[in-house]
């Protein structure tokens, strides 16, 4: 593993470059195919409304996959992620238009650990709501 970020160059509070991800319906269909998760709440709004959702929602695992990109893009080597965990707090609601939804992800170094590892805490919001809770990654730095 070869992260491009040096342990000696970060401190608690170091911010990673934030990113915004756009999610449209076609993105969800593509993710359904790639992941094998064909639950109709992610592509059929009639079904989603019948089970009490406001509209089609993104796969939680899709949101989790997007959020960690802030960390892997920073690291340079995605293989340097040692731990990654999230809680799915609110759904990302995806309207049937060309704008879709956006997920805003920020992250900062929250703790310096042994063996050149650090803990990174992430935030992810969509439409002003926190969509991931307790989102944390432990990464191996150089």
């Amino acid at each position, binding site marked *: 593993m070869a992260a491009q970020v040096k342990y000696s160059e970060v401190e608690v509070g170091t911010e990673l470059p934030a990113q915004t991800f756009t999610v449209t319906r076609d*993105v969800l269909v*593509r993710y359904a195919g*790639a992941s094998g998760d064909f639950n109709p709440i992610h592509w059929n709004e009639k079904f989603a409304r019948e089970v009490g959702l406001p509209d089609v929602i993104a796969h939680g695992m899709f949101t989790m996959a997007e959020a960690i990109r802030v960390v892997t893009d920073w690291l340079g*080597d995605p*293989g340097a*992620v040692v731990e990654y965990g999230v809680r799915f707090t609110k759904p990302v609601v995806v309207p049937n238009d060309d704008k879709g939804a956006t997920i805003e992800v920020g992250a900062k170094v929250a703790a310096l650990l042994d063996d050149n590892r650090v803990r990174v805490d992430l935030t992810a919001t969509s439409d002003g709501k926190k969509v991931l809770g307790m989102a944390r990654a432990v990464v191996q730095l150089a």
Partner: protein
Amino acid sequence: MALDQSFVGRSYPPTDPYEVGREKIREFAEAVGDFHPAYTDPEAARALGHPDVIAPPTFVFSIAFKAAGQVTGDPQLGLDYNQVVHGDQKFAYTRPVRAGDRLSVTTTIEAIKTMAGNDILDVRAEVHDEADGHVVTALIKLVARGPEED
């Protein structure tokens, strides 16, 4: 409906190996819009010290979750799958998943709790390679919403 507590601690036999293909990794990376070269270009992956292209961190979820279907689909457990939502997800990696891996998953029911009328199921999925080396552990928390109060 309360879940059968006697399932806590139960393990299921390892799954048949899932062979990780380069093109499946590429498909997944493109689906999440992530064009990091380590996912598609073997040379770029090798430059980072990996023997072949690696998979994005959450790629392994679908393999682990399919294996967890042994647990969640066990009729004796009594889980109403129509009411299930994904509560938490954690991964602990020994190394990244990479092309050519033949991955086998062993699932264990870690805990069953009832909170505010919801059934909460913690499933641990241990993913090993063909040499029985640990690759990643996935901790999957599923929440089965109880009946509405009204």
